[in-house]
């Protein structure tokens, strides 16, 4: 009974997904309905409560392949928050475009289930299958928009690259399995830290990094991001950017923080260089972008670079920083894409469509500004605290030069974020019609806004939770 209790949030989410699917099967389903999404959001809320109750559990179950500790719970909450917010504003976007909300809701819930399982996975098999559950749900979500070819193209690109990435990931896993004789992370750690690990283990570890790097926008595995961000529908992208990478980061934390600690001499320098390159590529390539969705894709890449710094920094504060960053990034990015989906989709997120948004929809413009400022790291918003935590971890670990370079590169980001703010506030709108949006969007944006501001102004409790949770990263 105990072990089923551990899975309660996942079961709730999965069951809700199934219920939505079954309802979809039997209802005639006029496309304008939004109740499936509301139901999904309610289920997420229930699961959120169930997850909160798991704080402080810290047990390993199912023959050592599944662990519920504060770290996992934290990432489960990130996944649920991302899913919940997405489900709130998604129907406003999907319903008018003839997409069945139920389909999308079910996919979001299943993907969220994967995102919740992944941080708990303590063996390669569970880890891989959860990762793939996320991926496959996203293939469908990305490609499913009707009447346009862009989403399908984006979906194909994501699928092919993700497929390649998982093949590489699996190859690395298979080699590790061969070298250590186990797929359990604990056993692998033991085997790798006993004596000098072979070079092949290092190569395998890099292959795993490449595979997971795809999910966390690690340059050079980031190529998919701009096209997918531009091609896919905004709710999908919001969920992708906020949830998927966070879950993958949890896996990275477990793998690289713990299992491959014995190989740190090899992957730390490489990851350090990649982090700087990722920050540089993300920030510099974002500069000439004229499409806000593409711009945010590159911004995601840049942020991945900062997070990588914290991963390399490791230890308690590094881990805590990664966790903190994931949650706050989720809020910011969901808010940003919530705004985009509220009005800018028809023109594909082109920056010109943002002109004069402050006049047409002051609330949207304000949320967008706060979200972007948070991403830019302007205090007292959440993004600033997160950035602070990351760089603090990096400096604490002694990577001062790297932190400095990354910080200077991050200054560039001000340019493109503020560019959008400027367009919204300074330029005259092409058409003066006010923009209307649904209640769900309003609620999601309000929640996102509250998250960004509250967690920025009162970061103490959450930071504390992250710190405590980071202590449980060991298994």
């Amino acid at each position: 009974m105990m072990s089923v209790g551990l899975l309660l949030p996942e079961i709730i989410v999965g069951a809700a997904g199934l219920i939505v699917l079954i309802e979809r099967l039997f209802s005639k389903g006029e496309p304008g309905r939004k109740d499936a999404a509301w139901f999904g959001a309610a289920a997420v809320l229930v699961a959120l409560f169930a997850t909160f109750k798991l704080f402080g559990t810290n047990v390993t179950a199912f023959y050592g392949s599944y662990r519920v500790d504060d770290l996992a719970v934290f990432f489960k909450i990130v996944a649920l928050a991302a899913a919940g917010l997405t489900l709130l504003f998604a129907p406003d976007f999907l319903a008018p475009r003839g997409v069945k909300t139920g389909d999308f809701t079910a996919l979001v819930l299943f993907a969220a289930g994967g995102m919740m399982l992944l941080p708990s996975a303590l063996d390669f098999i569970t880890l891989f299958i959860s990762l793939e559950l996320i991926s496959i749900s996203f293939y469908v979500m990305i490609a499913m928009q009707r009447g346009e070819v862009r989403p399908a193209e984006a979906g194909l690109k994501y699928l092919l690259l993700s497929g390649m990435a998982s093949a590489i990931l699996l190859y690395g896993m298979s080699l590790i399995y061969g070298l250590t004789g186990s797929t359990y992370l604990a056993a692998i750690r033991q085997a790798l830290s006993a004596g000098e690990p072979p070079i092949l283990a290092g190569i395998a570890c890099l292959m795993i990094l490449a595979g997971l790097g795809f999910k966390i926008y690690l340059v050079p595995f980031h190529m998919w991001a701009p096209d997918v961000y531009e091609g896919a529908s905004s709710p999908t992208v919001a969920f992708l950017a906020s949830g998927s990478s966070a879950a993958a980061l949890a896996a990275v934390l477990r793998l690289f923080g713990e299992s491959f600690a014995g190989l740190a001499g090899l992957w730390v320098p490489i990851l350090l260089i990649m982090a700087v390159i990722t920050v540089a590529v993300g920030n510099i390539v974002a500069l000439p972008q004229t499409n806000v969705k593409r711009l945010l894709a590159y911004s995601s890449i840049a942020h991945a670079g900062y997070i990588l710094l914290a991963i390399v920094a490791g230890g308690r504060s590094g881990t805590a920083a990664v966790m903190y960053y994931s949650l706050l990034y989720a809020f910011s990015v969901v808010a940003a894409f919530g705004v985009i989906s509220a009005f800018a989709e028809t023109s594909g997120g082109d920056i010109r469509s943002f002109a004069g948004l402050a006049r047409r929809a002051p609330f949207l413009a304000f949320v967008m500004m706060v979200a972007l400022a948070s991403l830019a790291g302007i205090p007292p918003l959440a993004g600033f605290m997160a950035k602070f935590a990351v760089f603090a971890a990096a400096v604490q670990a002694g990577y001062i030069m790297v932190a400095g370079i990354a910080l200077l590169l991050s200054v560039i980001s001000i340019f493109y974020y503020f560019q959008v703010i400027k367009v919204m506030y300074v330029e005259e709108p092409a058409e003066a019609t006010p923009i209307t949006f649904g209640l769900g969007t309003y609620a999601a944006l309000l929640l996102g806004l509250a998250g960004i501001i509250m967690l920025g102004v009162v970061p103490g409790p959450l930071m504390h939770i992250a710190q405590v949770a980071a202590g449980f990263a060991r298994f």
Partner: protein
Amino acid sequence: MVALPCYLGISTLLFVIGLFGALTKRNAIVVLMCIELMLNAVNINLVTFSRFIDPQALLGQLFVIFTIAVAAAEVAVGLAIIIVLNRYRDTVNLDDFTWLKG
């Protein structure tokens, strides 16, 4: 019994062939096929290791069952997308799609 490195040799070769194809082919379906080759290489590895190194717990074989399932799922979704794209664009060549800038 054939020695373990021979199996690894095959799997590596297959993996590399798949990778090469996946990186250089223009036809989306072929890229998908090449990814399947790579996954098969992984499976050979896993089965080999579970026979030679871990014959009692057989974790590798269990792993393979899951990778096979995932591969099938991936192909199903991939082909669905390819067919939809083919309807729109009348082509399955990757460079005929507007891949934008990349």
